């Protein structure tokens, strides 16, 4: 019977001690935020989805289209599309597609990027009910007003054109030589045509 009363006393005691703490806490300021009206400050290192870096000098992205981000990505969520343009050194980025639904924010792409063309963004308000909304073209995101045309280097363009012509010439010569070789033993009557080709070149 004494155990019974002892239990009641210890129980009431622990209740009183507990309530003392909760009452004290009741008077302190709440630590929560009213979300839509206030929002949490994001740290500069916060890892949102990746984004392309705008070079302050040229106003364009720094991507050299090497595809290292694509290769290093564990979930294969990056697609880099590029093409060769006349008069522009290297490749030109035409689309940088990030499928954010499968991204795990590991940072392998950012680490692999030699020219530091991508970084983590601070964006976190990304709620949507449609899956397509998470397939970003980062190039469009970087230039919402329209992707600027790459700068054409006239010297390089000239060089390239010369090179191209030289290549064309070489190809034509090769073709002509091959035709000659093939034609010579069979039909010597066709000589006129061949000489024409030679004149052309």
């Amino acid at each position, binding site marked *: 019977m004494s155990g019974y009363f002892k239990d009641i006393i210890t129980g009431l005691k622990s209740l009183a001690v507990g309530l003392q703490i909760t009452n004290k806490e009741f008077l302190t300021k709440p630590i929560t935020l009213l979300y839509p009206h206030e929002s949490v400050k994001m740290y500069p290192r916060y*890892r949102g989805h990746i984004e392309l870096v705008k070079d302050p000098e040229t106003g364009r992205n720094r991507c050299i289209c090497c595809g290292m981000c694509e290769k290093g990505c*564990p979930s294969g969520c990056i697609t880099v599309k590029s093409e060769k343009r006349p008069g522009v050194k290297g490749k030109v980025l035409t689309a940088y597609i990030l499928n954010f639904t499968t991204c795990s*924010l590991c940072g392998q792409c950012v680490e692999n990027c030699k020219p530091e063309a991508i970084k983590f963004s601070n964006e976190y308000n990304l709620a949507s009910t449609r899956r397509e909304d998470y397939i970003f073209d980062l190039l469009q995101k970087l230039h919402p007003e329209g992707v600027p045309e790459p700068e054409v280097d006239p010297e390089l363009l000239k060089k390239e054109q010369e090179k191209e012509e030289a290549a064309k010439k070489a190809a034509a010569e090769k073709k002509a030589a091959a035709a000659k070789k093939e034609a010579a033993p069979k039909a010597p009557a066709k000589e006129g045509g061949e000489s024409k080709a030679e004149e052309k070149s």
Partner: protein
Amino acid sequence: MSSLAQSQLRETFELNIGPQHPATHGVLRIKVVMDGEYIDRAEPILGYIHRMHEKMGENRTWNQFWPNMGRLDYLSAMAYNHCYAGLVERAMEIVVPERAEYIRVITAELNRIQSHLLGFGAYIMDLGGFTPLMYAMDEREQILDLLESVTGSRLTYCYFRFGGVYNDIDDDFITGTRAFIKRFRPQIPMYHKLVTGNAILMDRLIGVGPVSADMCRKYGATGPVLRGSGVNYDIRRNEPYSVYPELDFDIPVYKECDSMARYMVRMDEMVQSCRIIEQALNKLPEGPVMAEKVPKALKPPKGDFHYAVEAARGTFSMRAVSDGTNTAYRMRLRSPTYSNVSLFEEASRGMLLSDALAFLGSLDPVIPEMDR
């Protein structure tokens, strides 16, 4: 009650707990054969969140396996990062700069406190007390903010790298951590006053869920479960890694073998983690945080490698068999919760259903880590 099964001698029925049940902390299903209010046999059924992490480790390159380490045990992901980093560093014989090792210890211990805080709050909520969860969440938020400012993510960290860490810690983090420790220290006696001394909690935990040291050995249970059974076993001491040998800390051990002992081990571990963090911050050397010359395309030499760490829930160890290519031939993850929960069937026999749930909570399972 899913079905009614009658035995010859007495009437029993089957009861499904989970897979969608808040008391199971995730998608754990327990098939229980009940004899009235008492458990006849409880069989945990796993595999509801099986994601083939081991197979992924064999298909992906070594670097690509990093994000998986944050998604095994999402509550103490840092320790898992540590294990993987240590494994490959051991295989490749990479020497990690000392500063990086200290940063690893600081972040991993902060992560351990965070995990135990949530474990504590959620456990009390399992038992019907809602307020302590809010208090624990308040402190936990501080840690998450600190870790977010360094790693960039709040839970699924992918912060460690082979040969170091992703980026250096700054002065804000150091002062913030010191301020947190100062603020957190007096909170633990408050938790003890509010929760541990509570008569209802004592009634529900003391003497409930006996797990003997022999049973732990039989099932390979580690962590607070084993230390709550009176066995002084902690990888940080028994198989020291990183800079733990240079730090002074105690391993809390309780001999009572009941749910209360496991609960107390976790509470005391938080105090010890605070001690570790303070010492590590004082000893933090200057220098680089990444080893020089870590190859981008990793190809560890042929061989069999193993590394173990003490995660918040017990011993986590990884074993990788490398065949000299850029992927592992075999990747084995030994997760602590899997072993800890496997003793549930034997230990819960004859228990009251409500006690069994209190016992399950004291094992502190994290299901994605168990299923891997």
